[in-house]
């Protein structure tokens, strides 16, 4: 009967109910989108690193985080030195120029890259030839409406798009290493060295040897390195997520508070009727909290549905700049937080309703 009372109350004021659900759903979407973007972009960058097929990565001495690729602190001669180590099959130096967060222009030695990775798969066009040639992956080409043969201006340089490649192998944008070294005043330097070994059983052995050899440079097996692609390794992401979540909770509490306060005002007489029938304070409070819980649940579901919409929008509009995963693992968390916010927001109006004097409530017009 209590459930029917609550449901009928919600059904009877559909606009208020839907608006409340919408306003609760928006911060839920915001949180799920932020988390989904973090997870999606990290996962995509991780997959591109895996796509190289390397066993070990050596990074520059100044790296701040797992996604930090700026700086060219490794002398190019080091690549040859690494190549000469026992069990090393191939060492490939690359340099990166950051265009936007997690979007890099990668300078590479195409011959070595092809040996290490098996080469790019081309959707259109073909490999780099001239010094100003550039390859873009399908997502970047789609986002920027590019066709082979077009000129692209990046880092104040005109590039000739010669090929559109399938995404998933290291670079979203690839150019010749010597050209990028020249443009970035990094002649004789590389940013990272990717290494393959002769036998997977030797990966740790080689990595340890390289650590001894290159004391100032972080050396990681690819398994170690790709495992670092998590939120804890990205500076400021975690506090930012907490702040956005906190804002979402505050909005949720405020929306439910206002909504339920209006409910209590509008239903003062009905509360008086229930009290005249012998409804206890707990019963009245229970009705208000149950209604708020339903609004919170509705907002959570709507927020989840909207997060699919946000993913579709991101995939459609900016597939190369952003990748959003559906953060399933966060559904229970946002549901718990939203329901807690809804209950917290409904507590004061609910207690006000429970404390109402039945005679005054019955006289309310």
């Amino acid at each position: 009967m209590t459930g029917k009372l609550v449901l009928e109350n919600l059904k009877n004021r559909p606009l208020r109910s839907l608006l409340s659900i919408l306003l609760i759903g928006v911060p839920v979407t915001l949180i799920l989108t932020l988390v989904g973007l973090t997870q999606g972009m990290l996962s995509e960058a991780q997959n591109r690193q895996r796509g190289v097929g390397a066993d070990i990565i050596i990074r520059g001495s100044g790296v701040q985080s797992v996604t930090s690729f700026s700086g060219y602190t490794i002398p190019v001669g080091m690549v040859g030195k690494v190549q000469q180590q026992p069990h090393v099959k191939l060492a490939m130096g690359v340099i990166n120029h950051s265009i936007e967060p997690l979007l890099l222009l990668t300078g590479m030695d195409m011959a070595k890259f092809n040996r290490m990775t098996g080469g790019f798969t081309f959707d259109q066009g073909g490999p780099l030839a001239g010094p100003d040639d550039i390859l873009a992956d399908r997502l970047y080409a789609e986002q920027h409406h590019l066709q082979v043969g077009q000129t692209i201006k990046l880092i104040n340089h005109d590039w000739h798009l010669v090929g559109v490649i399938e995404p998933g192998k290291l670079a979203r944008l690839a150019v010749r290493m010597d050209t990028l070294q020249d443009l970035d005043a990094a002649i004789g330097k590389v940013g990272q060295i990717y290494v393959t070994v002769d036998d997977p059983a030797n990966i740790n052995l080689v990595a340890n040897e390289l650590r001894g050899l290159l004391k100032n440079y972080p050396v990681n097996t690819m398994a170690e390195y790709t495992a670092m692609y998590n939120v804890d390794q990205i500076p400021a992401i975690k506090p930012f997520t907490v702040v956005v979540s906190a804002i979402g909770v505050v909005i949720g509490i405020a929306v439910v508070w206002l909504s339920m306060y209006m409910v209590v005002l509008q239903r003062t007489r009905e509360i008086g009727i229930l009290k005249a029938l012998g409804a206890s304070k707990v019963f009245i409070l229970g009705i208000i909290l149950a209604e708020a819980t339903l609004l919170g649940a509705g907002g959570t579901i709507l927020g989840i549905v909207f997060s699919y919409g946000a993913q579709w929008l991101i995939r459609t509009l900016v597939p190369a700049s952003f990748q959003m995963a559906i953060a399933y693992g966060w559904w229970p968390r946002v549901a718990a937080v939203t329901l807690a916010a809804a209950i917290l927001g409904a507590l004061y109006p609910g207690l006000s309703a429970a404390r109402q004097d039945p005679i005054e409530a019955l006289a309310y017009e």
Partner: protein
Amino acid sequence: MNNGAIIEIRDLRKVYRIGQVDVPALRGVDLDVQPGEFLSIVGPSGSGKSTLFHIIGGLTPPTAGEVKVGSQNLAALTDAGRTRMRRRTVGFVFQKFNLLPNLTARDNIAVARHIAGLGAHPDTQFDEVLRLLGIDSRLDHKPSALSGGEQQRVAIARAIVNRPAILLADEPTGNLDSENSNAVLEVLRDLNRRLGQTVLMITHNPEAAAFGHSTVHMRDGRIIGRTGVAG
């Protein structure tokens, strides 16, 4: 104080505090109501009849005096105790019907049983009462689809569904035309005669008051007279 009365009131006083001023609403009321009696309470506005109704119904505590309803001394009850008392000991019928607008007539009746902890569905004997009230075919309608007379009869059904010792009716015909007023008053008299339901009815209307066995006259917070014969 034990004369078989279902309501026994001695020197009942009620003072409302409005701002800094104490306003006496009842100034020493004595009243006995016997089980099965249909008592009308009349008096001008401000005479204290609604306050008396609210105290007997457990909606507000007395300031002083003794009020016994059934076996319970209302002066000694806490707010929670009065809330429990309202579930089964008294049933209210109001001038403005006071049905829950979002629920059907059936659910309005069911909610009273639910709050009293009796389960939502009345026993089959109650079907006879619904037929007596003439609302058995209107139970699946919401109040907005019912006439004033029908709404008041649903309110009566809700008030007696838990078989309360006392039915308290506050101007039950105040919002009805004369035809519906008569129908509602007949229902109250029928319930009193057939089921032995004790009824206390506040009214301004002398014709309505005449439906009761006796009439209590109030003025300035006091009972100034009682006419008719106690049931």
